[in-house]
């Protein structure tokens, strides 16, 4: 299953790109996807405690089971206003 991942705000600078695609097996959780990601983007791994995760337009946590068609977003704490 190929899951597109978008990095927002300075996470894109830390990753060196704004988007990537991660291949995970069926039934994989976000936790699993993050493990893959953090291997490729160690600078993001350092931010894991202050990382927000969304699938589509909803917040999700590590236990969320990914489905085909899901789009994942990773970003730092929001700062509107």
């Amino acid at each position, binding site marked *: 299953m190929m899951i597109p991942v*978008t990095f927002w705000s300075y996470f894109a600078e830390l990753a060196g790109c704004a988007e990537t695609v991660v291949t995970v097996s069926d039934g994989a959780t976000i936790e699993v996807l993050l493990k893959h990601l953090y291997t490729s983007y160690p600078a993001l791994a350092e931010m894991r405690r202050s990382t927000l995760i969304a699938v589509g*337009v909803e917040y999700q946590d590590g236990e969320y089971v990914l489905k085909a068609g899901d789009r994942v977003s990773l970003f*730092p704490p929001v*700062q509107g206003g």
Partner: protein
Amino acid sequence: MKRFLSITHDPIDEAGLLAARSMSAGMGAAVYFSGVVRAQEGSELIVAIDYSCFVPMAEHQFHRLFDQLEQRGSVESLRLIHRIGRVAVGEASLWIEVVSAHRGEAFSACQWVIDEMKRVVPIWKKPVLVTEKPVA
């Protein structure tokens, strides 16, 4: 609840928003908030803030907040404009208006929306320092 949401690159036209305000005869309070970019961000002097936004999610999260407010039943109208892109010092990045029967509800709803926005709506700030060269 009437609602108006705009996430926009355009300057916030407060006068136009004011002119477009409508309040029914049962409403007694309108509370507005205008958030303006300050010359200082932390300890650094800045000339502007670059706001970035994951727009579809931001709209969705704003509407979730508005849904929660609507369930309280006390707000007649909520209008919110958040500017994105480069916003110069002295310009408004955020404008909110809440119309309600009573002022207590209007003040609390307005502050609640701002607090919740800062928790869940995917918008980020990047200060533009005085020393940086302007973006053409």
